[in-house]
């Protein structure tokens, strides 16, 4: 799943390590999410959404719309 996390993080001047610390996860997790290798769980997706102050669907883009 694609997402805008890298851009949102860059806007705030945060490194991957900064974001990881704010979300209490590893830097590897942030890297995997940003590069689309890992889709976060709903609780983590909502934590990301709260942190950036944006709805989940404004951050994560589904690969293709499903019914």
């Amino acid at each position, binding site marked *: 799943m694609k997402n805008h996390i890298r851009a949102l993080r860059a806007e705030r001047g945060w490194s991957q*390590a900064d974001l990881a*610390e704010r979300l209490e996860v590893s*830097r*590897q997790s942030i890297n995997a999410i940003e590069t689309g290798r890992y889709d976060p769980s709903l609780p983590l997706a909502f934590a990301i959404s709260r942190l950036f102050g944006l709805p989940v669907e404004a951050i994560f883009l589904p690969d293709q719309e499903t019914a």
Partner: protein
Amino acid sequence: MKSDTHEKRTGRAYLRELGVAFAIYAILLVASIRFGRPLEEGVLRTVVLLSPMIGFCLMLWAIARHLDRLDEYLRRNLLESFALAAALTAGLTFSYGFLETAGYPRLSMFAVWIVLAASTGLVTVVRALRQR
């Protein structure tokens, strides 16, 4: 921003708990060899010789606690590596069972643990290299 990252925190706690468990295992292993082997056959000897498993179980507990502390991505990665290593171990030990029938020397069950440890190391390294 704090330099005490998720990886460092979980890693430190894991090493501390695993270290204590391994120390208990090592002490019990030495004690069981020293005092258990000379004992006459019986329940007491069996119990003493099996006592290092207390330390081993503590190591398993440390690993379980480590899995619980990890974030979801690292936990998934580690569990996938364990699963692949277990499958590889099953394949290798099962194959060797056939080779024993073909005349290869019989090996101790301890060999399974060595194969599992080696498989886990191999799988972890290969997956880490593939993710670069």
